[in-house]
């Protein structure tokens, strides 16, 4: 499995950065301090915009010369017109949404295509942990206890696939990761710690 140039980014962000077309208009939802936006603007000539709920992170984006808006993706995506972007990117955030299904619809309304990445709750380590201990797993990728985690809608690769089929969303490509390395799609619902999907209507 060849790994894409990492852009100095987290593996899921690196795979997104590698597959965004140069010069595209991009909205990075949950952009944090703008690592992905900076890579997209600096290395792919994209017009990148960000949305982030944390004011400090937004201030850091602005201080880097990036365009970021403090906002809540549960509410403020409605502000954008249809097809405003070539890509809407939602990395490691769908599981924190109030209504992931509605957020997915919004992504595909404002972006012609969408990148979505999420942690896979059906990874074998999770299953084993739940089976052996009977308690909600706390792992490297989901490090927070059940009562304070922001991940309020845990999902699996299979769950996500069913949602896409149900909403008639097409998957252009998908990538799976285990231990920060890209892995094959075989038995991904067992083997993947997290997944990245490139979607379109």
């Amino acid at each position, binding site marked *: 499995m060849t790994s894409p140039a990492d852009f100095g980014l987290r593996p899921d962000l690196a795979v997104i950065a590698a597959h965004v077309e140069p010069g595209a208009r991009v909205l990075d939802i949950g952009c944090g301090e703008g690592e992905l936006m900076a890579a997209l603007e600096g290395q792919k000539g994209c*017009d990148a*915009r960000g949305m982030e709920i944390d*004011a*400090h992170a*937004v*201030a850091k*984006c*602005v*201080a*880097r*010369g*990036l*365009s*970021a*808006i*403090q*906002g809540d993706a549960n509410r403020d995506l409605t*502000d*954008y*017109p249809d097809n*405003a972007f070539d890509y809407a990117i939602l990395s490691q955030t769908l599981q924190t949404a109030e209504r992931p299904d509605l957020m997915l619809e919004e992504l595909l309304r404002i972006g012609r295509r969408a990148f979505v990445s999420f942690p896979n709750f059906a990874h074998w380590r999770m299953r084993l942990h739940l089976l052996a201990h009977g308690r909600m797993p706390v792992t490297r990728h989901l490090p927070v206890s059940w009562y304070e985690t922001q991940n309020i809608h845990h999902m699996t690769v299979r769950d996500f696939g069913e949602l896409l089929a149900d909403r008639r969303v097409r998957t252009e490509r998908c990538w799976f990761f285990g231990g920060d390395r890209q892995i094959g799609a075989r038995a991904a619902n067992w083997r993947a710690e997290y997944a990245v999907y490139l979607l379109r209507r």
Partner: protein
Amino acid sequence: MASARVLPSTHLVLPEPLRLDGGQSLDGVTIAYETYGTLAADRGNAILVPHALTGDQHVASPHPITGKPGWWNRMVGPGRPIDTDRFFVICSNVVGGCMGSTGPASLAADGQAWAMRFPVITIRDMVRGQVALLDALGIGRLHAVVGGSMGGMQALSLAAYWPERAARVLAIATSARHSAQNIAFHEVGRQAIMADPDWQGGDYYGTGRTPDKGLSVARMAAHITYLSEAGLTEKFGRRLQDRPDGTKGAKSFGFDADFQVESYLRYQGISFTDRFDANSYLYITRAMDYFDLAEEHGGRLADAFAGAQAAGKGARFCVISFDTDWLYPTSESRAVVHALNAAAAPVSFVELSAPFGHDSFLLDVPALDRVVTGFLG
């Protein structure tokens, strides 16, 4: 009581009449302005800082009447976020003002003060004056326009009507339109001025009587709107004011300024009358009330910015609000951001946390400094 270290502002007399939104035009308009820093050879390092309602051109230099430091001294200066070692900063007194630019206290052609004969002006008229000043200074495209409150309205108006004139637009604690509540507070102030017998229908110039009581009350009412409830509570609470003779504060069972907050407001009101013309207050508050960028664009705020963005002449925007500002709340900034998004303009927005209400933009908010510094690049 002008301080000796203060030099008089530079004055520009506009070569052309200033055409006004109200239909009239003004001949021989004077713009009083200050500049800081050095204009680069390519004239590309200029930043315009339009002032707020009761501000003036002394953004970073002592006020000639009060001797107090410039109103945005902490933001504008060498090594400050608007760094005068790098940028050429321009601040002019708005048309309608009373610090040297043509306003109701200026003399009309008949040698008498304009007073209430002065035409009602708009925010866009003020910006026309700013643009005329930029023309005179030979500045085509500003590095940035940076404004808070009414200064932010001017910044947005410049972006809407003269989009080629600024590469960056930073609008702080402001709005694209005056709300009913904003207008209501202004009306209280205007009525206080006009109810003062010394106002004399506006013709008080040269009579030896000025409507200081009315203007003072107007300032007191307005000043409350610039602060937050929590800020007032923290600063004054219900503490009583010590008497001038040094005796401990106590309830007088009368109507003296028993409470510290009363004493503070009275001082704010009275000291304001030393430096501000009551008629200017009427005209400038009116201009703000009339401001509604959406109304000026068929009711759709995005259309104020869409043309310029489509033509590739548009600016980058940064909009900042404060969580305790109830005069221009975050929802107003969000409306601007929403419109800019709809116009596909590059826009950043952040709501900063600061305890000082609307006045936060003038006060010590380190996060504001960081965002301004970063945005100006």
